[in-house]
Every structure is written in C-alpha cells, then in structure tokens.
C-alpha cells in the first residue's frame, strides 16, 4: 500500500512569510497527526484529527499555526507568519484508529532565514 505522502520535501522561506504543508494519509486511515521534530529530538504532536474533526490541538500554537482536514482525507498545516524558531521537520502520520500504529511520511524540512 502507498505510504503517507507529504509535500514539499523542503521549504526555505524568510521569517514573517507564510508557509503551508500538505499531507495525504494512507487510504482508509481515519486518524491523522501533525508532528514537529527538532534536530536531535523525537517528534512532538501538534494536532490530531479523527476524520475531519480536530480532537487534540492542545500543542498547536494557535496564534500562528492552523490546520485543516476538510473532507477527512488530505490535510494542510499552515504557519503565518513564520518565525526563526519554526525551523524544524514537520511530519504527518496516520493510523487506522487512535490506539493503532502510526505510520509517518518523510516530512517537510522547513528552514527560516
């Protein structure tokens, strides 16, 4: 089966600019996650979706970050405006259900100049 697909793979922008990441989960996976991974650390959850509903966004910095999963399949994560500290790898994962193995995409590496 096809894995989780993310795009773009790399993004370089200047601070204060907007940026968006896109994720296509594994077919049939109702649960979708966005993580941020800083260099040398494990992924940290930003938001979790059950179908189109965001059921856990407690770690999402809502002043500048937003996400959507309008039809319960693909998802986008947006940062506006980006700050230097946002440089990281943004990972998307999906699972059949919340307490099932999560499968990750290869992420988008964001660099803020």
């Amino acid at each position: 089966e096809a894995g989780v697909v993310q795009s773009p793979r790399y993004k370089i922008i200047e601070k204060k600019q907007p940026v968006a990441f896109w994720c296509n989960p594994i077919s049939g996976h109702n649960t979708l996650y966005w993580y941020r991974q800083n260099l040398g650390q494990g992924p940290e959850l930003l938001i979790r979706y059950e179908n189109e509903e965001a059921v856990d966004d407690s770690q999402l910095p809502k002043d500048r970050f937003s996400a959507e999963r309008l039809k319960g399949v693909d998802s986008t994560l947006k940062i506006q405006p980006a700050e230097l500290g946002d440089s990281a790898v943004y990972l998307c994962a999906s699972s059949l259900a919340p307490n099932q193995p999560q499968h990750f995409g290869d992420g988008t590496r964001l660099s803020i100049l």
Partner: protein
Amino acid sequence: GESVGLHLPTLSVQEGDNSIINCAYSNSASDYFIWYKQESGKGPQFIIDIRSNMDKRQGQRVTVLLNKTVKHLSLQIAATQPGDSAVYFCAENRNFGNEKLTFGTGTRLTIIP
C-alpha cells in the same frame, strides 16, 4: 516530571552481532509502546509495538521486551546488518481516552562492518 527516556544516546555494534536498545518510562499507567526506526532524511518507520498486557513480542529479527515492574522497554535486533544503522525511538501512549504518543530523544545505532 514524567518522561520517556533512553539510557544511551549512541550505540555501536559489530555487524552480525545482536544489539539491545533500552528505554525507560515513568508513567506506570501507559498501556501502549512502539519502537520506531528513523533514517536520515526520512520519517520514523514503525518497527514493532507492544501493549501492557504482554511482556514480549517478536517480529522479524526484532524482539521487544516490556518490564512493567521497573518500567523498562527494550528493543533487541538480531544479527545486525548495515541497514540497521539509524536512530531508534521508543514512544509511549500516555493519555487515555485522548490517545497521544510521547517520543523519547532517541538512540543512534551504528553498525560497524
């Protein structure tokens, strides 16, 4: 505070030998644990999982052991190969009814040819 941690940040193993990667967790109520492998430039790859009602689970060349008494998790890789070189993360599911994986920092495994 609560944490998912690893005993060793780096581990070097001779090709063909067995390797053991250890992980300590502090929340005795965690009920689900996963090991991930992450190669450079890629997302975490699911290796094996175990639930708290089990002590041991085996996969292809990998075994996960769970010791709930001392809150310890280990990943054993048999007959290591160069392709096993990567960073390995353990993750625990901490929030019940609001599933959330928390990742440790990771251990870098290097296989010496």
